[in-house]
């Protein structure tokens, strides 16, 4: 069947979950370049205010607001989501559960192309008069409810349209993932024999689907305000701006776990394979993450402690926010316990995975300071928050994402990424990440509030300027460090060292299929006899046992 397909059917309008997963991933990586470029523009301006940015030009307040708004929007919705959830989810879940494809291949194709359309709309918004949205990635009204407040008309409309299309795509992707997992598992693949990654992808999809409704409602209400002056969020028309914040964050906070969970899944698969150990406390991790999923719906107002909500409401949300550290502490402890008495192999995917754990911890602990209602009065909307969430999101999206790419690249393309260049990429990326974001904690505690285009305008912040410069220099290194990765990625795709079906000696089902798997994935239908973490089983004669191995 695959022989008769044209190139277009096979690689462009494909219904194969693997091709679609790779399409999502590559689109996400390209958008990451755009997001990174925008970061370069505003970080250059912050370090060297009003000198003009090489490769961009003058950065005034409007250009600055555009750059930060679109950087946030792109990195969350067009990089983190497509790479982690749709990219890895699409590619790996059918393989890992032993299915030939997703439950709805045609819907899967439609989901990618809807996402592609959303990308086109978003990029088009840069080129309309007045440019793209300048209202932050949170798009708070009334600033956004009346285009006159920012002077951005079409940019705002297109932002809403692009986000709506993106969510429609993610919904299709999510329903597909859930249905596939529920109905298409191979014989013997009970729920508690699924790799943790499959659990994480499904819980993430559930969280996304339960939380996105209110935000879509909010987006439509906002469109009503913008086009027809309905006034849902405009006080003079009887509306309330805080309503939007509730709708946004009811989605927005669970969303960070939608991004986090797939990365935790990726990390779990990688550390077990490279420590040659079973994951520690598999079921406990699953239950902890399910609990965190439920709790994630009860924390949203911690973004609004000082937004004008009833201050008495802040106390319970402060408590739930601080408590959500417990399930994720369980995950982190379980991951660390997995290293105990292991035989750790330091290949590039493992280095990224270890760095993800080590760095994410710092993002996690600093979150407690934000989560405290009293401390939040000071740190809210300062660079402390910026540093905190980059210490969570960067390890999750990029360190976790790179770990996954280096690990499954041999499966995707039948060839390895170059290991030496991988280690260079790893070292430079991780070090420069700390160089960018560690100083920003001090910048924030020093009293710098977010989204100001020229810190030198505030006399009290001039002493912090050297820190801004260090952060920007760090970003230069970080962006430069991606060049070897990009070259490595495309070179290795065609010229890299050839990989066998199971180059890492790992257990889950994707390693039973050939590298790369053909259409339909498996040469013969896999029958599952064990869980995926039988590494170093004492009675076995080798230190790994594939899930299909008969005892």
């Amino acid at each position, binding site marked *: 069947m695959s022989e008769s397909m044209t190139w277009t059917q096979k690689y462009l309008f494909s219904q194969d979950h693997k091709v679609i997963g790779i399409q999502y991933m590559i689109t996400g990586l390209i958008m990451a370049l755009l997001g990174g470029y925008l970061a370069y523009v505003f970080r250059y301006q912050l370090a060297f205010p009003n000198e003009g940015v090489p490769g961009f030009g003058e950065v005034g307040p409007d250009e600055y607001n555009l750059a930060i708004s679109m950087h946030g929007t792109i990195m969350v919705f067009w990089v983190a989501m497509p790479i982690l959830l749709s990219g890895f989810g699409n590619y790996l879940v059918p393989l890992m559960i032993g299915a030939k494809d997703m439950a709805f291949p045609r819907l899967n194709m439609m989901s990618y192309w809807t996402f592609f359309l959303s990308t086109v709309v978003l990029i088009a918004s840069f080129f309309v008069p007045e440019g793209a949205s*300048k209202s932050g990635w949170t798009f708070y009204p009334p600033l956004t409810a009346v285009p006159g407040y920012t002077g951005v008309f079409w940019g705002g409309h297109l932002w809403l349209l692009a986000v709506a299309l993106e969510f429609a795509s993610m919904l299709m992707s999510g329903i597909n993932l859930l249905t596939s997992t529920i109905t298409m598992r191979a014989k013997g693949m009970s729920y508690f024999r699924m790799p943790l990654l499959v659990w994480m992808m499904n819980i993430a999809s559930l969280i996304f689907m339960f939380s996105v409704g209110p935000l879509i409602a909010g987006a439509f209400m906002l469109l009503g305000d913008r086009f027809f002056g309905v006034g849902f969020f405009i006080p003079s028309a009887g509306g309330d701006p805080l309503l939007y914040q509730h709708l946004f964050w009811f989605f927005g906070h669970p969303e960070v776990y939608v991004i986090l969970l797939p990365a935790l899944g990726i990390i779990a698969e990688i550390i077990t394979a490279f*420590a040659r150990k079973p994951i520690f406390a598999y079921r406990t991790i699953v239950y902890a993450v399910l609990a965190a999923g439920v709790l994630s719906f009860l924390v949203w107002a911690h973004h609004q402690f000082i937004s004008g909500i009833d201050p008495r409401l*802040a106390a319970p949300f402060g408590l739930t926010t601080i408590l959500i550290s417990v399930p994720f502490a369980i995950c982190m402890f379980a991951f660390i316990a997995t290293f105990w008495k292991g035989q750790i192999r330091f290949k590039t995917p493992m280095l990224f995975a*270890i760095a993800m754990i080590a760095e994410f911890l710092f993002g996690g602990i600093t979150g407690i*300071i934000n989560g*405290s209602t009293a401390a939040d009065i000071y740190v809210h909307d300062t660079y402390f928050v910026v540093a905190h969430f980059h210490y969570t999101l960067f390890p999750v999206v990029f360190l976790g994402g790179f770990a996954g790419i280096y690990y499954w690249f041999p499966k995707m393309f039948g060839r390895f990424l170059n290991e030496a260049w991988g280690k260079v990429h790893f070292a430079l990326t991780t070090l420069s990440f700390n160089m960018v974001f560690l100083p920003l904690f001090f910048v924030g505690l020093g009293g710098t*509030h977010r989204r100001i285009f020229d810190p030198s305008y505030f006399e009290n912040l001039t002493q912090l300027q050297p820190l801004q410069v260090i952060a920007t220099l760090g970003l230069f290194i970080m962006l430069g460090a991606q060049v070897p990765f990009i070259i490595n990625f495309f070179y290795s795709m065609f010229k890299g060292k050839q990989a066998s079906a199971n180059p890492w000696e790992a257990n889950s089902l994707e390693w039973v299929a050939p590298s790369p798997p053909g259409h339909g994935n498996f040469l013969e239908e896999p029958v599952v006899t064990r869980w995926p973490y039988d590494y170093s089983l004492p009675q076995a004669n080798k230190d790994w046992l594939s899930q299909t191995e008969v005892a």
Partner: protein
Amino acid sequence: MFDWLFYWLPENISTYGAKIDGIMKMIWVIVFSWFVVVELVLFYFIFRYRAKEGGRASFQPGHGKAVLWILIPAALVLACDLAIDVRQNPVWDEIKINMPKPEEADQEIEINAQQFAWNFVMPGRDGSLKTADDIKVMGTLTLPVGAKVIFYLTSQDVIHSFWVPVLRLKQDAVPGRRITGWFQATKEGTYIIGCAELCGSGHGVMKAKLRILSPHDYEEWLEKESPETAEETAWKVEVPHE
């Protein structure tokens, strides 16, 4: 070992600021201790259990009682969480919930935000608001040192956020609402007020001054500024649901 994070923290000039600083530092000591211990364990394991020729890992799925190795630390995390919450709640309570009542305050002021400026109404010589001698100024808030001040915060257009780092005070100004808050400045000087919520093109230049004066200087200032009669208001505060 712990104070380095707060090296650049600006001075505090409000009565409750030290409590916020104390909460931040208390949390930091707890969470950073955790961080150090966990990282040490992580890197010890990574170093200690690196692959060796002919070595074999130990099969440890963490079933049964072994799960206590992670549940006990997690229970300690829970205990720390609850301790943090119990300690920090009274501070939030003092600053944002059980505020001084108007009759307990030395002064009441109106703060009104607009794109891209802060407007202030301060009482004139009679010491009370909404009288003919109110002083209306854009860009500079002048107050006597030590006064317990209640403010009423409004916005004319979009959401802004009243942000005074030295007071450890931040409060969003939301159009359609009149939000009450308070502070008590303990040190004379001139300080920066910013807007901490993205409010449009001029967000980055929305700045005002807070002048805290000695009683003597404040009297002098009052003498000079307080208008004899009501003037046409320079700006209008619209509060639909007061």
